[in-house]
């Protein structure tokens, strides 16, 4: 970022307005703003070829790795398994299996033993499942989390001890709308326990 020891206060306040109004932008306003971005002049900057290739490679890789939901769907189809059969064999409720299939639930919501049953039933190795579960976690985190942060539904409250009328702060916690264990650290711990459990069963 360009270093400047003076920032135009009005322009900066207007930029803040722009950043904030995006949260509440309706379809028409977003379309108008996108049009401005996409109709940049001909001298638009581009990144280096290497950086560009790196970005496309990484995006391609992310899309190519299967999520847990994709793995379950593909394996069920290949093995001609129904949700009802899988629910009985794994003791995972049908509703939870449906959520796992659609990648709409963080995998560590499922008790370890039951998830182990599921992987066994689908004959999925820990290594394959681990990568898929991490992708599912990122998918959920990215899609729901970003929407939550960009959402116009915000809770405003006065910050304690602040001068009267000076600053209002969003009090919505970073974990709003999530269970405490739905974070990466908990998932890593869960995966480590799952790995041990699956290794124990092989011995």
């Amino acid at each position: 970022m360009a270093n400047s020891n003076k920032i135009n206060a009005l322009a900066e306040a207007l930029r803040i307005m722009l950043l904030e109004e995006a949260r509440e932008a309706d379809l028409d306003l977003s379309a108008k703003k996108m049009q401005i971005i996409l109709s940049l002049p001909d001298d638009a900057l581009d990144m280096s070829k290497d950086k560009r290739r790196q970005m496309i490679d990484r995006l391609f890789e992310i899309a190519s790795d299967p999520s847990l939901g994709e793995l379950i769907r593909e394996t069920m189809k290949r093995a001609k398994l129904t949700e009802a059969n899988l629910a009985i064999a794994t003791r995972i409720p049908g509703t939870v299996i449906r959520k796992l299939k659609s990648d709409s639930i963080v995998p560590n919501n499922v008790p370890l033993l039951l998830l182990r049953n599921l992987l066994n039933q689908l004959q999925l190795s820990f290594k394959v499942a681990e990568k898929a579960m991490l992708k599912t976690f990122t998918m959920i985190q990215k899609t729901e989390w970003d929407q939550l942060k960009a959402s116009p539904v915000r809770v405003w409250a006065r910050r304690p001890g602040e001068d009267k009328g000076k600053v209002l702060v969003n009090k919505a916690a970073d974990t709003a709308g999530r269970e405490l264990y739905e974070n990466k650290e908990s998932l890593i711990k869960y995966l480590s326990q799952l790995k041990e459990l699956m290794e124990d069963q092989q011995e």
Partner: protein
Amino acid sequence: MASFTYTEIVKLVRQKDRKGFELLYNHYGQKFFSFAVKRWFLTEDEAWEVVYQTLQTLVLKLPLHEFESKKHFDNFLYKVFINYLRQYYRRHRKQQAEEVDFTISLQAAFAADEPETKDEPASVPELNTLAIKAYYQEDAVESPNLVALKCALQQLKADERDILLLRAQNYTYEEIAKMLKIKNNQLKVKHHRSKQKLMQLLNKKNANHG
């Protein structure tokens, strides 16, 4: 470059066809990159991250979501992009505030870019610079000053508002004239008068609340 619709790009990405990812970058990523660097002063590395996070979010969203129309697609992409832009912009303004003599001068802001007009200069209201600095520190800080500015902006005519917001993003008068399909020759004066009008509205609000 052949033109592709968003549905064609989405279809190729869903099919995990590499061409789809290239098109996604060409149609959106590159524009976002240029916008972040030229309009928001991000470094190329920062802009790379913003674009990558934005496109990654879209790529991960696609298997789970069907967009009803181009407007819905644009709405999603725009909000995600601005969300990451906001995060990076705030983070680095915050760093900048710690590293350099961070002086926000509204007087200087108003004096700069001053065209020769016979208008009386508007008196400059106190814009609480603490509110701007606080914005870099906390997620979604909003101050009465910024709310007043938002209200004042809403009272301007659409073209006055557009000129002010586009100039704040460093678009040249020539670019603004093209975008708004208006003549360039009076744009500088119009920009100045829009600022004057905005300041008068803010002064009025301050007087009412003072």
